[in-house]
């Protein structure tokens, strides 16, 4: 009987994944190219056409300035003003002026004329930059219905500044009401442009305002007021910032909490969350990101900078896929999980932190939405190629690249990825044209495909390493786009290799540890450990890499290729984490450190290791990986944080750290009984 259990479980997964597969296939067919019409008809007429978006059924229309005054007079804002007046002794009028000032700086002031201007210019620009802009029209229709029914929050993935321009552009094109977008205050630095963005629906928020009660109150009330009245869809980025690595970032819950409060407090009956996946064949900021990851600060947004960036207009950035996901009802998500009566005992205008239960709920839906974004991402051939290239540095032949890419394509499709592989074109042509688009990252020398900087790498200096790593990171940022497809089976594969066991329990134990270590690196649904494992294992079995006899798991003959490919795919992370984890055990390591000093010191340390050839993968130089690994150490209890007068100080718990390092090297841990029982 007990032998049956894993089988049946796999069985149920089969069904769910098959059905998922079907939708991914259909998805591609339903994409429409937005640019096609733009290339054929007048942009001016398009910009000046009649724009009559559908609106929320209970909408009471009002002007942006009326909205601002509602916010200013609202109970929560007035409450905080009075509180601050009491605390600081300042007159409430002055604080009120301050609040009004914040609102003035923050608020959007949507103007149709500016929108039309944008519609015109963006048409011109997008046509120059992008080959095609694919949109799933069914998703648009669903969004349109959702907007009429309940207040809507649109949650796009964030890979580029283009994201919100593109989204508004699409929504204008399809006659949807333009979203009000929470944008970083840094945009305001751009003269004129900032103001124009505001008039096209952006509102600006400071990147951090933890301590500023007034700002928080004004900002959150602003968002909530828009949602309550259904003035417009509210748009923000769950990931908080543009992902520099191409991987999804962990969801930030602050804005999500604000956006949820109207529902949690019963001020609206329901709300829709709409995940939107924007996939770029080539990201505008790719080189900037790579530099940033190596510690070069991000250039400040400025209009002159933007004008200088004009030269990118002459480049080809391929195609974009924008997938509007199925609107998710917040009420459905919350049913049986959150008791809203928790909000009954405190007047609703008094600011509060989410309760533990609510926080868990927000965390769960945040992760879920990011995963939904991932699921609907469209993967370009180049992503597959980058995955192959980065496993074969310094380079490989074109034939080999083609062979491996096609093999990877098959595997990826089995694993449920939707790949935008051109039809009716020979694979060779696909590969070649992708390479041509990527001339800044790779080049082909004598049939050998190598990274752009590879040939200059004559001598080993820190500077050269830096240059080389930029190319690696750029290439990696495309490989990273597909990691979410592979991460579960790959971690199972690695666990399989590491444990050298065929016992399901052992592999699961190792898997669960790896998942725990990498849970800041890759997005896993909280509390979904067993399902993640089942899914990973199931996919490996489906691809024929692993098969089950009795209760034991065995690698099949041809499975070796898949298993080792997957584990090599994630090796940069495994190696990187090991190096980072071991760093605090280094004799020269200072006992007390801050997160900043850790990163800075580690960079030098790692560069030296690379110079000596002790490290294989340069990706460890990425600050993103370093931050994630440090977060993992904190989560695992190997590093403890202390609040002191000078700020937050970290201390290493060497004993725990030692254990953590050991386990990652040969990750074998006793399995918790509860987990086994559920298997």
């Amino acid at each position: 009987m007990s032998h049956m259990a894993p089988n049946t479980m796999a069985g149920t997964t089969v069904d769910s994944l098959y059905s998922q597969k079907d939708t991914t296939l259909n998805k591609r067919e339903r994409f429409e190219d937005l640019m096609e019409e733009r290339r054929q008809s007048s942009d001016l007429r398009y910009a000046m056409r009649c724009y009559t978006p559908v609106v929320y059924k209970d909408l009471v229309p009002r002007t942006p300035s009326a909205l601002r005054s509602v916010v200013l007079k609202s109970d929560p804002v007035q409450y905080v003003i009075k509180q601050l007046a009491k605390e600081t002794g300042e007159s409430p009028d002055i604080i009120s002026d301050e609040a009004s000032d914040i609102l003035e700086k923050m608020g959007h002031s949507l103007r149709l004329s500016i929108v039309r201007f944008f519609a015109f210019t963006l048409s011109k620009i997008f046509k120059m930059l992008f080959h095609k802009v694919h949109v799933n029209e069914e998703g648009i229709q669903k969004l349109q219905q959702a907007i009429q029914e309940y207040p809507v929050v649109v949650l796009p993935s964030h890979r580029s500044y283009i994201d919100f321009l593109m989204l508004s552009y699409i929504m204008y094109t399809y006659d949807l009401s333009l979203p009000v977008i929470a944008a970083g205050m840094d945009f305001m630095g751009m003269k004129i442009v900032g103001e124009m963005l505001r008039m096209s629906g952006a509102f600006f928020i400071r990147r951090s305002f933890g301590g500023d009660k007034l700002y928080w109150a004004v900002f959150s009330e602003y968002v909530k007021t828009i949602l309550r009245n259904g003035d417009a869809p509210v748009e923000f980025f769950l990931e908080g910032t543009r992902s520099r690595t191409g991987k999804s970032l962990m969801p930030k819950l602050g804005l999500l909490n604000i956006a949820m409060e109207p529902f949690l407090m019963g001020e609206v009956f329901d709300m829709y969350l709409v995940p939107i996946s924007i996939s770029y064949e080539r990201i505008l900021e790719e080189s900037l990101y790579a530099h940033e990851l190596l510690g070069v600060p991000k250039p400040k947004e400025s209009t002159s900078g933007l004008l200088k960036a004009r030269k990118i207009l002459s480049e080809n950035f391929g195609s974009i896929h924008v997938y509007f996901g199925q609107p998710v009802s917040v009420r459905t998500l919350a049913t049986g999980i959150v008791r809203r009566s928790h909000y009954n005992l405190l007047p609703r205008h008094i600011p509060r932190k989410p309760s533990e239960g609510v926080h868990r709920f927000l965390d769960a839906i945040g992760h879920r939405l990011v995963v939904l974004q991932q699921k609907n991402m469209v993967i370009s051939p180049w992503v597959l190629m980058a995955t192959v290239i980065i496993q074969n540095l310094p380079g490989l032949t074109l034939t080999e690249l083609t062979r491996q890419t096609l093999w990877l394509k098959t595997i990826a499709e089995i694993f449920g990825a939707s790949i935008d592989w051109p039809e009716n074109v020979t694979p060779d042509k696909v590969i070649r044209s992708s390479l041509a688009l990527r001339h800044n990252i790779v080049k082909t020398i004598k049939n050998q495909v190598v990274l752009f900087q590879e040939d200059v790498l004559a001598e080993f200096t820190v500077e050269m390493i830096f240059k080389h790593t930029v190319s690696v990171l750029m290439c990696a940022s495309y490989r990273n786009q597909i990691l979410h497809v592979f991460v579960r089976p790959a971690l199972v594969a690695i666990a399989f290799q590491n444990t050298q066991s065929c016992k399901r329990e052992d592999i699961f134990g190792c898997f669960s540890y790896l998942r725990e270590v990498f849970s800041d690196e890759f997005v896993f649904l909280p509390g979904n450990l067993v399902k993640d494992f089942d899914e990973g294992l199931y996919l490996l079995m489906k691809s024929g890499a692993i098969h089950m006899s009795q209760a034991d798991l065995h690698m099949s003959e041809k499975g070796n290729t898949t298993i080792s490919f997957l584990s090599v795919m994630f090796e940069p992370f495994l190696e990187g984490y090991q190096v980072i984890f071991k760093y605090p055990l280094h004799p020269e390591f200072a006992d007390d450190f801050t997160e900043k000093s850790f990163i800075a010191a580690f960079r030098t340390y790692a560069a030296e290791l690379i110079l000596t050839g002790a490290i294989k993968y340069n990706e460890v130089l990425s600050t993103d990986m370093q931050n994630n690994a440090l977060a993992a150490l904190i989560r695992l209890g190997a590093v403890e944080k202390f609040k002191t007068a000078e700020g937050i100080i970290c201390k290493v718990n060497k004993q725990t750290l030692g254990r953590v390092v050991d386990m990652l090297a040969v990750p074998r841990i006793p399995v918790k009984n509860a987990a086994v029982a559920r298997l």
Partner: protein
Amino acid sequence: MASEEREQPRARQRLRVMAGHLRRPGTGPAAPSTAEPAATATATATATATDCPALEPAAADGAAKATGSIPRRRQEILKWNGWGYRDSKFTFNKKGQGEFTGKRYRLSGMILPALKEWMEKSFGASLEHKTTPRTTPNLDLPLSILNEECLKDLKYLNIPFSQDPEDRLIRSHGHCLHEIFALREGKVQRVPDVVIWPSCHSDVVKIVQLASKHNVCIIPFGGGTSVSDALECPTDEKRTIVSLDTSQMNRIMWIDEKNLTAHVEAGITGQDLERQLSEYGYCTGHEPDSMEFSSLGGWVATRASGMKKNIYGNIEDLIVHIKMVTPRGVVEKSCQGPRMSTGPDIYHFIMGSEGTLGVVTEVTIKMRPLPEYQKYGSIVFPDFESGVACLREVARQRCAPASIRLMDNTQFQFGDAKHGDEESCENSNNVKIIFIGEWIVWIGHALKPQVASIFTSFLDGLKKFYITKFKGFDPNELCVTTLLFEGAREKVLQQEKHVYDIAAKFGGLAAGEDNGQRGYMLTFVIAYIRDLGMDYYIIGESFETSVPWDRVLDLCRNVKEKLVKECKEKGVQFLPLATCRVTQTYDAGACVYFYFAFNYRGISDPISVFEQIEASAREEILENGGSLSHHHGVGKLRKRWLKESISDVGVGMLKSVKKYVDPNNIFGNRNLL
């Protein structure tokens, strides 16, 4: 020997009673003191059944009329299968016109031309699709459980009782939808085994003693108007169930004009109490919508609330003294001081105990001189939001009239679907609301696309005055507040002005007395409409809650939307009626009343669907900051949420009281806990 000893004081008491009756109570200062012994006297006197009838005529021209309007065989005047009097009901005549039968109500005998259309338009009902309920009650009941010994003791008590199936059946239910539905279908579950009619406090003492002796379950029955499953007999109750019908304990035992109190037996109905007090120029002012049938004891046991509580207070404000018989003994306070600091108020264990602790037998209740002047009123608001804002302001300024109710748009349309034939358009200025109302019913459902043109042509027929007045009011948004002012004439007029001034600030327009009066007239007949609906596949129920002011709007919207949504999800084919009114105002919040009904054609198990939807609406109420109940009580219908509402410890506190007072669960109706 023993009987002689007993006989002597009884004779003396009877004498005193007679003496008391000779002097009309309420006319002289001696009234309270004479009346008090009378109470004891009647109690003892009625101890034997033979004494009771002898006393009644005497009492009739004395302190009170002993004959209440509800006889033992209540089925003789009340329906067995629906609400209220047998002679009063909504029906469609041969011409297909709506009509309200009987002579009891102002609406009685009137033709209601808009009713049919309203039912068709609002519910998708049709006169051709009629249900076929039973015409007579299903009396095929399980055998009465009653052992010989108990029966012998029962007979020895000399208190009238009955094992007649009809008597038992009609005391096995309240007025929840599923209860009435089951009656009409002839589905019978556990019913009481015996019905007993005590006629005084000491009768009750004896019954409770007997019940304790034989381990019998007592379920007190007052007016039978419960809407919380409180009267439902637990199906797994293996003991004999005695339905203790208090309807014959219905006398006013004395009134005390010095202290403005009346001591009354708890079985008296609201209408008897008010009518009899009015003969002396007084009233209690406690007017729950069920007051025609519900009893004083029932009000106490459920923490009832009356329409005019703004002036007179809710039951907890009206009570001065309570006497309750429990298995542990009689509980009461030793004085009638107006307020006491003597530990937690024991009356608060009794109020809301829902028959789980004992039987309330006698109550001293406050009374007031009959109001000098009464005036109805109504206000039209452009939308529900401004209406609520106005009510909130009225509550803030504490100038609420005796009653102030705000109906939402749908309910307002409903109210006007029923206006009588004789109130035609040329009548007076006051018909404006009716007109607009009917127009809404007409337009809102039948001719939507042509709104503008019909509106214009219709308005041509009205006086210019109204065009300007109503300009800007969206017929699908506007809603009406009905008002009832009571008190000294001067003060009423002053208050009226005050309220209308506030209303004006919120865009409200005074809409005349008639509309107000019609609104209140509907109060008593509205309960009859469900029976008509059930003839045409429409089932419905009302439920209520109380909620802080800042949550009123959100709660109303969310609950209504939840109802509509749930109907859709549960496969209800027609759009339901989901409507509400803000029916009471308080300093810190309001009482909201919902009416919910739908056409169940096409659903195989309508009652279970209905109950699921009602439960989800209750969940929604609780999640939106509303209470489990404002005045209907918990009963068995809502007890699953009690723990969440009053905490584990709170439930424990109640349980420990129950354990002490009634360790053997004699009062085993299993309400509340």
